[in-house]
């Protein structure tokens, strides 16, 4: 910014922004802190902020009592698998729309987007029924497919916006030099598209990890990912704040870290290019 900013104003800005930032972040911070307390300290009156005997006990107990790793593994498989499948289907589609656009490309893109707007509850029973009939209820395969389908429009859109930024002349040059379609995609396009694909993978993984309609309704004990595992804490027995916090911290930590890398892509991915 070209304007001269006085130091005083900068100090006020900094103080205000940090206060608001910490206030918004506080619930997460409080959860992380509580996860290191004993159950008694967790509900101490008045609340203890930093000065308590830190313990890792909750993390051990959560794992031992509920086999936390299994839920974590389900989340990884379902979020990772749906992202992988989605990319597999979306890359060719986005490629053809970006480089061989036809008169209908725009309509197809918008139509794909419109499927994302379909309220899940409107198709809950049919999906539930299909899952029962095909033996997919409470299976990782079934959930992976559903999450792939609900996020496919976002993947196609994101890839499309990234691919469109790749200059078509480079592809034409490769074609002139005798590259086949396969070679063109493999050796020319892919290296240039890797950053875009990586961002798409990242955002989609986050969305799939946090999805909490289908994961709650289509799983029980076997295929339940972390979203459903955490939901089981809604009817707790006895003291459980510290354990809830430990389980929560483990469930959100990986995504918080991934999320920090994807802030920029978030805008692109979730506004479908309508805000730049």
């Amino acid at each position, binding site marked *: 910014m*070209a*304007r001269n900013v006085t130091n005083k*104003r*900068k100090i006020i*800005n*900094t103080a205000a*922004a940090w206060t*608001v*930032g910490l206030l*918004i*972040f506080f*619930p997460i911070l*409080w*959860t992380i802190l509580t996860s290191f307390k004993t159950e008694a300290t967790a509900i101490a009156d*008045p*609340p203890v902020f930093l000065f308590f005997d830190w313990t890792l006990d909750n993390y051990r107990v959560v794992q031992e009592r509920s086999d936390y790793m299994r839920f974590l593994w389900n989340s990884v498989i379902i979020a990772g698998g749906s992202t992988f499948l989605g990319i597999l*289907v979306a890359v*060719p589609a986005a490629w*053809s729309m970006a*480089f*061989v656009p*036809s008169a209908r490309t725009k309509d*197809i893109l*918008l139509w*794909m987007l*419109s499927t994302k*707007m*379909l*309220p899940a*509850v*409107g*198709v809950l*029973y*049919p*999906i*539930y*029924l299909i899952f029962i009939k095909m033996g997919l209820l409470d299976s990782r395969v079934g959930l992976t497919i559903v999450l792939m*389908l609900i996020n*496919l429009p976002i993947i196609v859109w994101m890839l499309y916006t990234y691919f469109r930024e790749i200059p078509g002349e480079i592809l034409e040059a490769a074609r002139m030099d005798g590259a086949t379609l396969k070679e063109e995609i493999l050796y020319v396009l892919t290296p240039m598209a890797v950053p875009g694909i990586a961002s798409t993978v990242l955002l989609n993984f986050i969305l799939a990890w*946090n999805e*909490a*309609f289908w994961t*709650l309704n289509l799983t029980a004990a076997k295929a339940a990912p*972390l979203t*459903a595992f*955490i*939901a089981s804490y*809604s009817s707790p027995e006895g003291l459980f*704040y510290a354990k*809830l916090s430990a389980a*929560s911290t483990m*469930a*959100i930590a990986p995504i*918080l870290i991934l*999320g920090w890398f994807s802030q920029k892509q978030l805008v692109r991915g*979730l*506004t479908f290019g*309508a*805000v*730049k």
Partner: protein
Amino acid sequence: MATKASRSAARLMMAPAVVLLLGWMLVPLCMTLYFSFKKYLPLRGGDLGWVGFENYVRFFSSSAFWPSVQATLVIVGGVLVITVVFGILLAILLDQPMWGQGIVRILVIAPFFVMPTVSALVWKNMFMDPVNGLFAHLWKFFGATPIEWLSQASMTSLIIIVSWQWLPFATLILLTAIQSLDSEQLEAAEMDGAPPLSRFGYITLPHLSRAITVVVLIQTIFLLSIFAEIFVTTQGSFGTKTLTYLIYQRVLESQNVGLGSAGGIFAVILANFIAIFLMRIVGKNLDA
């Protein structure tokens, strides 16, 4: 120019995505439509035949319908107002020169990455619990009687939780839009003696209008179908039964599939109504 061969190759490459999404959209939707005209009770006799529009009539005339519409409007409206207003203020604040801007940004965005079940349960237990929650401690500290948030102020509580989740999204998009504002315009206005409020009202706000529209439309579509937040907090009691939750209860809890499906079709039509506006904006941008 694309050759004929590459055109047919392109069509072939598009096919899997198109076919999958077409199937995903049409098959369940047609089934819902089919069920909505049937008396269908899987646990009490199964398919009991065609009933015409009876499910629709019963869904719209049931005593739960209007309260659920009201609950949906209050939650969606409340969250939209809070996230857009505070989102604009936050975006302007974060756009100012300061120390540690990157870190503050991360702090503000973080809630968006917290899974809905975690944020709802953390708020429910560790903040809103009338005995051990932080709010209760805070209220007692000031000599007030702690509120039983999720029963006495159920809607407010849900709006707080959901707003906390969506404020980062609004802020991030509005911040992106603000950063594309030409600062010379603001400087010129400042030199001409325009006070800060007019600069905001005549330059910043009009510049943001499109981003605000996009935020409102996208959030509306997602907010109409919030589920987990209600599922783990009130389970739809204390007046928090939104349309989505009502349909969920009809379909899966009371297994009245015909009735639930009629509601489902209504939800689909409602969402499409909003989606059309969003598509127009997105589509316009696609041409540019």
